[in-house]
């Protein structure tokens, strides 16, 4: 028998059609970029050792990856079965109905509004402030240090955040091509910064090195002969009593900071129509992103612990930074810059990290504006939102709305204590629960889609997607408990914020039924926009 019959090929005729443009590396880069490993590490080292006594960052990473894995598979399986742009809006709408689809997706859009304020604040706080401070320290130029410290103030953070948001809205209004062209270069600087940071820590396995580097670089600016001793004393005065023994409880709670980033490994689900061979690529790209970033975090945690140690990181977290001549606690990138003892390396580390600091924001604005456009096209939002610029094909009104909402959120985040960094992740988890239910029910609610998909696998007669949907629901419910317990997540003891999360979650349902009523008066049944037509 001819060899070709071992794997008979199909005969394809010349015909026009959709060209999917995003390949393997595009999809991986898109997902990894959105998880922003730089920010993940920053929070983990800034807060983990100090405020989660006895927490093991290594075990937290491992457990968190295991908890997110079923969600990654849920997204991968759904994106393979329904390879269309729109993510959960498509999945939940088709499986559970348009009202719940709108509820799930509008919840995410609302949190993208609110979270518009967070990464835009990070630009000044964790990007520019450390960069200028480090340059000031290295060059002995106090003006640069002052500029860095100003960026860390409320006004500095707000002004820079507004500039960033407005700049992004203007760039996106012109078209995404310019942005992606620039971003493809900037992300290389960001990645290089992380690699250099970890390499510097890896090259120094002795805690004495970091103390020496810390003292030699901060002595001048702090006016103290032994800044490290000041840190230890200041931390003790603030109530720090030394490292605790291993605690599973705190290990679980510190996962909130890892989950904050890693749970967004599924961004390519929202550009499904653009992904080449989506049925296979989407299936493995999301778990692959999870493992790649997870391994990167594990290695970094090991290297930083080896070079700096949890104790010094914890002391830094407790100490008053003003005694060091700084307006905020030095970040792990600043520690790496001191340890590098080389101005070029210090520059590259600080400069590259600037591009991690706001990494979530462009995706949030783009995804949010695409969602708003989709609501308008489906008749759920006023038609004003679906106006598209005929030259750039960008939804200008939806983009502007995202910009205005992001600036309002930035003001709330910077000038009030209403909104903690983690507070809305609980809200995202509520959508993840609904998406998990959709995955579990897909084979029963849409048997046709399931049977013709590349994921129509069964174990002992039970669809695999149903099993992973159930596992994901359990894992995400567990993570919801973790967020409710974590005192730094802004929910524990703040019942109003928990209620706010639930209200935001339900708000999409209200929007849907109000739109349905308004459209119904015009003779349009909105529910028909999503309802599947029977074949027989």
């Amino acid at each position, binding site marked *: *028998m001819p060899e*070709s019959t*071992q794997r008979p090929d199909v005969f394809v*005729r010349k*015909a026009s059609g*959709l060209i999917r443009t995003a390949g393997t590396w595009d999809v991986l880069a898109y997902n990894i970029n959105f998880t922003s490993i730089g920010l993940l590490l920053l929070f983990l080292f800034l807060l983990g050792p100090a405020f989660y006594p006895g927490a093991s960052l290594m075990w937290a990473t491992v457990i968190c990856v295991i908890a997110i894995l079923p969600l990654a598979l849920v997204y991968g399986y759904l994106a393979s079965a329904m390879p269309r742009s729109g993510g959960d809006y498509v999945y939940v709408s088709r499986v559970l109905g348009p009202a719940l689809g709108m509820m799930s997706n509008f919840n995410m859009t609302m949190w993208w509004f609110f979270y518009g304020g967070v990464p835009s604040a990070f630009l000044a706080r964790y990007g520019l402030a450390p960069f200028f401070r480090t340059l000031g320290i290295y060059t002995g130029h106090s003006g640069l240090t002052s500029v860095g410290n100003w960026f860390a103030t409320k006004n500095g953070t707000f002004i820079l955040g507004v500039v960033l948001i407005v700049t992004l809205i203007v760039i996106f209004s012109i078209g995404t091509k310019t942005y992606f062209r620039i971003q493809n270069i900037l992300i290389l600087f960001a990645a290089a910064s992380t690699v250099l940071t970890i390499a510097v820590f890896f090259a120094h396995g002795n805690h004495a090195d970091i103390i020496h580097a810390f003292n030699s670089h901060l002595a001048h600016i702090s006016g103290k002969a032994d800044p490290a001793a000041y840190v230890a004393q200041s931390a003790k005065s603030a109530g720090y009593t030394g490292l605790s023994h291993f605690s599973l409880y705190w290990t679980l709670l510190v996962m909130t900071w890892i989950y904050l980033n890693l749970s967004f490994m599924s961004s390519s689900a929202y550009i499904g*129509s653009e992904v080449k061979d989506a049925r296979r690529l989407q299936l493995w790209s999301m778990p692959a992103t999870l493992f790649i970033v997870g391994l990167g975090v594990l290695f970094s945690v090991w290297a930083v612990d080896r070079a700096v140690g949890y104790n010094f990181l914890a002391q830094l977290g407790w100490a008053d930074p003003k005694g060091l001549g700084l307006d905020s606690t030095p970040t792990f990138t600043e520690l790496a810059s001191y340890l590098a003892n080389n101005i070029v390396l210090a520059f590259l580390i600080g400069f590259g990290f600037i591009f991690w600091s706001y990494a979530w924001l462009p995706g949030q604005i783009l995804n949010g504006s695409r969602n708003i456009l989709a609501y308008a096209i489906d*008749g759920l939002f006023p038609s004003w939102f679906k106006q598209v610029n005929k030259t750039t094909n960008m939804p200008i009104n939806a983009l502007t709305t995202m910009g205005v909402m992001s600036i309002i959120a930035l003001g709330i985040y910077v000038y009030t204590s209403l909104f903690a960094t983690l507070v809305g992740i609980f809200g995202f988890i509520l959508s993840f629960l609904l998406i998990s239910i959709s995955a579990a029910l897909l084979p029963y609610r849409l048997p046709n889609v399931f049977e013709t998909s590349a994921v129509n696998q069964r174990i002992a007669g039970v669809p695999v997607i149903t099993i992973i949907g159930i596992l994901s629901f359990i894992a995400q419910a567990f993570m919801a408990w973790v967020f409710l317990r974590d005192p730094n997540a802004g929910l524990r003891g703040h019942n109003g914020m928990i209620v706010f999360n639930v209200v935001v979650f339900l708000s999409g349902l209200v929007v849907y039924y109000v739109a349905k009523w*308004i459209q119904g008066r015009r003779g349009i049944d909105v529910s028909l*926009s999503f309802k599947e037509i029977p074949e027989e």
Partner: protein
Amino acid sequence: MALFGKKAKTQTTKLFFVTDVHGSETTFRKFVNAGKFYGVNALILGGDIAGKMVVPILDLGGGHWRATIQAITHELNSQEEVTEFAKRAAKLGYYSEVVSPEEYEDLAHNPERVDALYHRLATERLATWIDLAEERLSGTGIRMFVTGGNDDSTDVLEAIVRHARDSVVACEDKVVQLDDDGHFMLSLGLSNPTPWHTPREVSEEELAQHIEQMVSGVSDFTRAVFNLHAPPIDSTLDTCAKLDWTTDPPSVVTSGGTPVMYGAGSTAVRQAIEKYQPLLSLHGHIHESRGETKIGRTVAINPGSEYGEGVLRGAIITLSGDNVESVQLTSG
């Protein structure tokens, strides 16, 4: 203007427009049922009806068959499994044929035989579809208007003319009446040139001539519907990745690592819309550019296509006199 669009007046005619089903059994069956489902008066299928792929099912003898679909090779061990496999292929828009290993080799080395096989299978499926539509729409008062696209060769389209009886109207290259309210539709499936060199693409000049010939007998366009497969250029209904025509298959042109997006629509179509300002203009061709826009007074629509996922993208359009009262894009 109301918040969500224009306020409805008296409804007269409701249309449901879809396009680019590309052989998908699932989407066509949904389309046939869409009339009752959405409560419309007329169904319009806007071209690119035929599928793109033939899946050979190798008969290995001894009750064993082998075939590849979605890059996965399947071993089939009963006639029932072969039937199920063929149904699955049809749902995705593929044609399938049981062949011996020798026939497979012969086809693999003779493109003209593959072409003949494709034409036979496409014609057979289209004939089955038209029969199904006639049967299901009979007595409902709903009419189905079917035209071709640039991917549909003339001989395949003849199957529509041969099988259309009462409810199905083969409207390619014709001006047809849509309702009793004076709305009429002219349909043309030709497209401007594409990088795939498909069966029915012509130069912009020829396309303009075809359109001019069709509109020559029309004096009042206030109730006219243009059903032109190619969308107007730079209309937001024609945005797709720019392709390099010199490679086979065409490859995406990138700039700075990103695909270059552009308007691939037709200048002839745009000029015709701008010149005659019909009430409504229906398009397809660019699957990923779903949307609705206005060109002067004309409401132009491309409902997009997701036939490969079995999703019927469409548009419910309500016409009232010389107004388009509402447009609702659907995913059914």
